[in-house]
């Protein structure tokens, strides 16, 4: 039965990892706007977007 110790450890680490990922996604703004991306993905990119300048990373 001692294997349960290991399993508990793994389960806690996994669950904690998901919590951490959720926090990270939250901080990264993934949940800020849940509507616009759904529309945005349907736009065609007809022209080769030469202006594909890298969007600057957020500095906060």
């Amino acid at each position: 039965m001692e294997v349960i110790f290991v399993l508990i450890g793994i389960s806690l680490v996994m669950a904690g990892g998901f919590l951490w990922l959720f926090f990270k996604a939250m901080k990264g703004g993934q949940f800020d706007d849940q509507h616009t991306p759904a529309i945005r993905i349907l736009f065609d990119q007809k022209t080769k977007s030469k202006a594909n300048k890298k969007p600057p990373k957020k500095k906060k």
Partner: protein
Amino acid sequence: MEEMPVRIEKSKIVSCFHCGEGCEDELLVRDEKNFCCTGCLTVYEVLNENNLCDYYDIEVTPGTNLKEQEIRDNRFDYLDDEDVINKLIDFRDEEQTHVTFTIPMIHCASCIWLLENLYKLDPGVTFSRVDFIKKKVQIKFSSKETSLKSIVKLLSRIGYEPRINLSDLGEERGLKSDKKLIYQLAVAGFCFGNMMFFSLPEYFSETELLGNGFNHLFNYLNILLALPVVFYSATDYFRSAWLAVRNRSVNMDVPIALGIISLFTYSLFEIFVTGQEGYLDTLGGLLFFLLVGKYYQQKTFDTLSFDRDYKAYFPIAITKMVKDREVVIPLTKLDVGDIVKVRNEELVPADSLLLDAKASIDYSFVTGEAIPVPVKKGELIYAGGRQKGGAIKLAVQKSPSQGYLTDLWNHDAFSKEEQKDSLASLANQISGKFTFTVLFIAFGALIYWGFSDVSIGVKAFTSVLIITCPCALAMSTPFTLGNVMRIFGKGGFYLKNTQVIEKLAGIDSLVFDKTGTLTAPSKAKVSYQGENLSEVSKRMIKALVNYSVHPLSNSINQWLGNIDPVLLHEVEEIPGKGLQAKYKSKTISLGSALFLGVGPTDNAGNMGNEVHLVIDGMYWGVFRIASSIREGIEKMVPDLANSYEVHLLSGDHNHEEQYLKKALGENVSMHFQQSPKSKLAHIRNMQEDRKRVLMVGDGLNDAGALKASEVGIAVTDNISHFSPASDGILDGGKLNHLPDYLDFAKTGRKIIKASFGLSFTYNAVGIFFAVQGLVSPVLCAILMPASSISVVLFTTIATNFQAYRKGLNDKEMILWK
């Protein structure tokens, strides 16, 4: 090409390729496409040049009508001002600047597409991203290549003018409290889930199977998981409870905080001292469900701002005259003694003296009186007046923050004091008593058992506290009210917070403002009495009223409909009096009885304002313009007058009294010529008679009354317009549903009471066992979530069912434009 069938169907009126409205006044054709005005055409040209015509493929006629767009080149000059820039932007370094604009015009997928391709129009823009729901666009641009001003100009040129408010400049933006709640919820959910996991064996007495070592391990893990719940997720409850206790009152959060503390400490005691398992899983579940309820409530409405103050009304920039040169400065930099220029339809930002010969000021915004007041040279014009007619020059007498309007706004009597005991909400009243009763019973049990067996006494004491922990009680209110608020929101009625619903249920008197609230400003009723008007005379009148921006002229203009005006000469407008012009050899004049020297008339003053028509000295007839009442009001007000005391306050003269009496019924008591202060005093008087008053108003002139009343509801036709500080915002078109809303607020109250009954039953059963010291962790663990969930289910189903029965729930969501 999808537009073609649409256009053929509406073969008579060609619709604009850009905005989709009919090209009635003019028709411009470019590239075989029709445009209704130069504004729309310009946008098309800009987009066409830059290969952005995909804009028109994503949605049909995606644009906004630009007929009424103000075209003045220098009106954004204040955006060159360093102070203004610093307040508007989010972030800036040497290379780039980040700024977020609110653009109310965002309404379709094309808007998103165009705004996110902004870099094609202005190479300086490196990044733009739209938040559709919040109607915001975040733009990053290189400071070297472009400027804030040119971006705003570009946006306004393509029909997406950002809304920039003075109040935005005043304070820091960006509340992150919403996110904090989600973090707390996530932590509570995580901990709760895992605690349940470790507690599960206990429920089924499986721990013995696993052995004692596991039991201890599980308990310690539970403590570890409970720490973030108590010290992070629950902090808001502690803070709120502490504030309430410090103010010597009891709110809903006090019993919750007490419950959390007793659960936690007792569980620690059990685990460390007596070696039992404690109630930490219950604690986690309690907080998780509480926070879900809170999130649900917050989610219901957080986009509206209710406390915009007078600053949101004022223009952000003002044209100042410096040695005959126009300079646009931000309003905050306006000083006493400055000479400013105010154009047609602009607001006077500060109390000032008129330097030009005459002006015509519309104070409807302050007093509710719709007819402009003539002002002569050297007279004082108060802040908040709107100039009608040509541009005027003014000498500023007081800084914008000391004017009459701001005085009014900051008047002591106008600030709504925080809730006193008499207004304390139902839930808080009950929970206060509840807390004391529970404490009393708990101590009673402790003392009773204390004589025979101290350990049973402690157990009974704590289990009473735990099992009665008012989570069902605490959740029934936010869930019910949150639901009611959501249903109201669907019907175009937005409340500031849920407490308003409870207050709404207790209302016994209604006070309505007239102008703009009961009457729709855009729909004036015109009637003509006199000699028959020939086609030519109609066209003459049409031409004449075209020259004036006076609201009465506008009403007559609308009444005349779509006829061709004739060409007039020697047109003269005498502000506040009337109009005069020559057509061929005829002289035609239109105006007040006094101005035309026609004998007025014994029947004057019974129906609205009068405009007389004289052609070549001959009296022809009179136009009567009565403000028209919104749809459904004629039925609503008399209905309400049956069950409530209804008052009507108006800033106007009493010339419409008879008409209103006829339309609204005799039971309405009417008061005319009410200044903002007398409206406030009226409400106060009613309250002294122990009336609980609901005030329904619209303008700033009602602001005091809205604040003083128990519930103040601002009626607005356009959400992006200013609305004074109030408890709720109601869509003007939905005003006739007010009785339904009042009714439903009462239903909500009943549902809360019923769910209180339900949770009291649970609590009574719980206490019955708890005082006998019989409660096992299993019972506690089952009873608590079961009671909470069943109460939540009950309120949710009951409110939705009631709303469905009253027909409130099936309306479509109203999207504000």
